[in-house]
Structure formats: structure tokens, C-alpha cells
């Protein structure tokens, strides 16, 4: 069966160059970067080279990059580490209502320790209003954390404007750029952020290779107490192959970003235009203008997302319904609800996220198999029957 992979937000394949760069560190170059001998030095050089590449991806200095095991860890590190490091100044945190669970639940954990938080709402396109962030700031606020882009609806947030509202008050700004880094140009100076999370598995690097940028001079408490790795801010022996893979993926993303974007945007736009034309009662979710280049998301009314995913999978098409975690919890996404969609509509959430390798033929295949799937599930759905009755047909 033809297999069409349209779930980039869940995982990207390793680029061959990335795999090649990693290979020695899964083999003969097994040294510990902290060792003094030649084997250790070789590993250390590779880790530091990767640090340079990751820093270049986001306009940072190498010394400002801390490697982590996942985007989730980077977000936990940023939110908890910055909040706990600055609690003498205040204990209030401002985040958006559509943050990833790793930010939301880090904040929940801090709330249990006496911090307070304000969740800034979003508009119907999933955009956080910088003025809304500004209004939420208090004398007690020490940290603002808003994601660079949302993986469920693809909307890119106005981070520079949000940071501009917080910085004059001496409030730290973190952005979870896991969904955006490697796909859209990011510059920590232009954005004005103090911390930024990214993960290589979102741009053709390996799982397990992720990083947090922390601006030089910003105090952050470690999440993992241990040895002197990562400047004492993240203990634990470095995952050298993953770090090397992340670095190489970052270097390739920096080099190829514009070309990748130019290739994938027309395919994305075709999907955003055509799917609602081919199937009635399909809404595009998220922003049409400020949108991740590889991201097309929809709500299909009167049917539920998981049933669509299973049906697509049976026809060889891989997609997702909101974040992978959302589809596991199988509940209406907090992102879509925050955007004002009702529960029934939000249950029909579907995300097609395109790889660089995605071809027009892949989309042809999707557009061929998907309408009959929706039709079959709607004929089974009491909500559709009700709708037809109301419409009088």
C-alpha cells in the first residue's frame, strides 16, 4: 500500500547527513566528553561543535546553549529554573492558554509551590495578543512564557512584541520554540527573549537531542543536579550521538531553511485551500498568514478525530489529531477550546504536517482517500443526522 507520512509534528526522519555525522559516536568515538584523554577530547570537540551549530540556528552564542534530552525537558528547565531562580523578586508567571503541556504542567507544579499564574487568552486564530500579555503583568510577575508557534494549529505568535512588553519591566521572557525552530528563522536578539527551547526531532535530527538557550547572565536553577556538565546547569553525561545529530540537523536547517520553505508552502496552501472545497463543513484552524510552513490543520465537523486517524492509517496515510498527547488523552484540545471552538467541533481536529519529502502525489492520495472516510463516518454519526434534519434534506 502507498504510504503517505503527514505527521511531521510527531516525528521527522533523520536526514542521511545527520545519521552519518552521528555514526562515529555510536561506534568507535564512544568517549566521555568530560574525560581528559584523547577519546574524551574527541567527544568533547563534537559536542562543542554541535553547540556552535545550534547557537547559529537561533542567533545565540555557543555558551548560551544547554543540551537537554527533549523539548519537554527544555521547557521544564526554563519555566521551573527561571521561576525558582527569581522567586525573591516575585512569584507570578504569565503564559498563554495554548502552551504545550510541558509548560502548562510546569506552571501547575509551581502553583502547588505557591506561585500564581495568569493564562492569557488567544483569538480565534490562536494568536496571543501582546496587549493581553501586558495587561496580565503585575509587580509580582517574574516570567512570561509564550510559545513561538503552536503545533496543533500552526499559528506563529508575535514573540518580539510580547517580549517588548515584558522586558522594560525587567521580566524574563521564555519561548517554547520546539514547533518552530528549524522551520522558521529565529533570532534570539531580534525576538528579545531570555530563553528559548528547541528540539532536533522536529527538524530531521534524532529524538533525544534538544536544547535550551539561556541568555548570558540570566540566573537559572538546574533541573538535574549533578556534575559539571553544561556549566553545572544540567548534570548527567552528555548524550553525544544525539547532541551531534541535533547540531548537524541545526546546521542543515540554517543552510536550507529558505529552500525548504519555498518547496513546502505551496503544498501546504494547496491543502488548506482544497480540503474545505472537497468536503463540506471543514474549517481551517489557526492563522492563514502567520503559519508554520509545513502545517495544515482542520476541524472536520460531525466526526471525531481518532476515528479519522484510524481510517486514514488503514489507507496508508499518517496524520495526527492535535498533539500526540492530546490524541492519547482523547479529549478536546485545550488549544481549540481556547480558540473558542465548541467541544463537538474540536473533537474533529486533524493536523496534516508536511515533510520536505512530501510530494504533490502524496497530497493527491490524501485528497482521494479522505473524502470517502469523512463520508462514511458522517453517515454513522448522530450529529450529522441531526444536522441533515435541521438543514431539511
Amino acid at each position, binding site marked *: 500500500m502507498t504510504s503517505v507520512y503527514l505527521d511531521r509534528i510527531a516525528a521527522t526522519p533523520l536526514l542521511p547527513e545527520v545519521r552519518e555525522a552521528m555514526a562515529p559516536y555510536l561506534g568507535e568515538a564512544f568517549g566521555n566528553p568530560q574525560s581528559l584523554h584523547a577519546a574524551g577530547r574527541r567527544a568533547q570537540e563534537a559536542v562543542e561543535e554541535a553547540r556552535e551549530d545550534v547557537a547559529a540556528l537561533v542567533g545565540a552564542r555557543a555558551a548560551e546553549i544547554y543540551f537537554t534530552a527533549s523539548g519537554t525537558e527544555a521547557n521544564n528547565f526554563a519555566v521551573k529554573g527561571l521561576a525558582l531562580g527569581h522567586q525573591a523578586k516575585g512569584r507570578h508567571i504569565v503564559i498563554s492558554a495554548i502552551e504545550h503541556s510541558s509548560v502548562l504542567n510546569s506552571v*501547575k507544579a509551581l502553583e502547588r509551590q505557591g506561585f500564581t499564574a495568569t493564562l492569557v487568552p488567544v483569538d480565534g486564530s490562536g494568536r496571543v495578543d501582546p496587549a493581553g500579555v501586558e495587561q496580565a503583568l503585575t509587580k509580582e510577575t517574574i516570567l512570561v512564557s509564550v510559545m513561538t508557534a503552536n503545533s496543533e494549529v500552526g499559528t506563529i505568535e508575535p514573540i518580539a512584541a510580547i517580549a517588548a512588553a515584558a522586558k522594560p519591566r525587567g521580566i524574563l521572557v521564555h519561548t517554547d520554540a520546539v514547533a518552530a525552530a528549524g522551520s522558521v528563522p529565529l533570532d534570539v536578539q531580534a525576538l528579545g527573549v531570555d530563553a528559548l527551547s528547541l528540539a532536533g526531532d522536529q527538524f530531521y535530527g534524532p529524538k533525544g537531542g534538544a536544547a535550551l538557550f539561556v541568555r548570558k547572565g540570566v540566573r537559572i536553577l538546574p533541573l538535574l543536579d549533578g556534575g559539571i556538565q553544561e556549566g553545572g546547569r544540567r548534570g548527567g553525561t552528555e548524550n553525544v550521538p544525539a547532541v551531534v545529530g541535533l547540531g548537524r540537523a541545526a546546521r542543515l536547517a540554517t543552510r536550507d531553511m529558505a529552500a525548504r520553505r519555498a518547496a513546502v508552502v505551496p503544498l501546504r496552501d494547496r491543502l488548506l485551500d482544497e480540503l474545505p472545497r472537497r468536503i463540506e463543513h471543514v474549517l481551517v484552524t489557526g492563522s492563514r498568514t502567520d503559519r508554520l510552513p509545513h502545517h495544515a490543520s482542520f476541524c472536520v465537523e460531525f466526526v471525531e478525530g*481518532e476515528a479519522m486517524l*484510524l481510517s486514514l492509517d488503514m489507507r496508508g496515510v499518517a496524520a495526527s489529531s492535535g498533539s500526540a498527547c492530546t490524541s492519547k488523552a482523547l479529549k*478536546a484540545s485545550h488549544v481549540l477550546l481556547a480558540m473558542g471552538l465548541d467541544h463537538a467541533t474540536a473533537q474533529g481536529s486533524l493536523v496534516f504536517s508536511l515533510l520536505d519529502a512530501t510530494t504533490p502525489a502524496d497530497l493527491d492520495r490524501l485528497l482521494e482517500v479522505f473524502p470517502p472516510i469523512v463520508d462514511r463516518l458522517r*453517515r454513522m454519526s*448522530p450529529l450529522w443526522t441531526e444536522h441533515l434534519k435541521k438543514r431539511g434534506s
Partner: protein
Amino acid sequence: MYSDKVMDHFANPRNVGVLADADGVGQVGNPVCGDMMTFYIKVENDRLADVKFQTFGCGAAIAVSSMVSEMAKGKTLAEAMAITNDLVAEELGGLPKNKMHCSNLGADALHEAIKNYEDKRAGRAPAEKPAGDLHEHEGEACECPYCETALEEENKAFCRACHVEFEECPGCGGITKKGDAACIHCGAPLKKAS
């Protein structure tokens, strides 16, 4: 994640549809819960001569509905009333844990249809089900009523899996979603969060 039997019933559901001249109709669930099932029955000589269903929901919900319809067809009303959600799950070769509560409501919907038939036959007004009635709350109020994830002892008012905040319903004492107009269990009106 699903058994072959679940996938078979999902891909080829039996008895999908609407019976225009149904003797009884039963509905459970709502889109908040994620799944909604409507069962239609035709009764002849105290037996279920025909059973049809429509379901809005995930693969498990569709498979459960299909299995219930197959198990119930041809049974006496008493036999059909003895079909439990657990038996249906067993018959399907098991369901993932997070599906047991939300999606496994097929037997309830069938029973609602039978009750509806009996009410009509007895000349009783069909029992008014409060909007949003999902299912009985069983046991201790320590699990998320949506996904059955265990709620943390120190923070029972929040489900980490679905990001839902809860409050206790003043009517039935069940855990229900904060900010909703009515309790998901008993339909009692809730005070709007100020």
C-alpha cells in the same frame, strides 16, 4: 493499541443506521465526553427484532456500538438488559484502559432504548434524561470522569491528562467540569465561576 476484533468492528460496523419506525430510542454521551451513541430498537414478541445505531466518537466507541448491536439482536429484552459494558469490552478482546469509561457506553445506550420502549408501552412519559447525562459515577471520586486518569491526591481539581479543571457537583457530589452550566452526571445547574 486496539485488538483485531475492535479494528474489524470499526472498519466494518454491523447495524449502522436509523430505524425510522423504532419502538425505542436511547442516547448516551455527548461531545464533551468525546463519544455519543444513539440506539434504535424494533421489538417483536419481547425480542429485539432489529437494532440499529449511530455513533459519534473514536474507533472504540464505534466498535463498541457495533458489538452491542450484534450481541443484542434476536435476544429477549431481559437478555439484552443483562448485557453489560464490561461484557462488551470482553467480547471485543479488551479495550485500552483510557477507553473503558468514555467509549464503552454501548450497553447503556441499548438499555436506554429498551427503557424508552417499555415506558412508551406502559403509557409513561419517557423519563427525561438531563442533557449531558453521561454515566453513573462509580466508586471514589478519584479519577477524571473524561479519561479515567487517576487524579493526584494533592490536586484532585485538575486532570493532567486532559487539562480539565473540576469542581464537586452540589447535587450528586460527583466530579464535574468547572465552569460548565450543568453537572455532567446529574444535570444539576452549577454556579458560574465568578
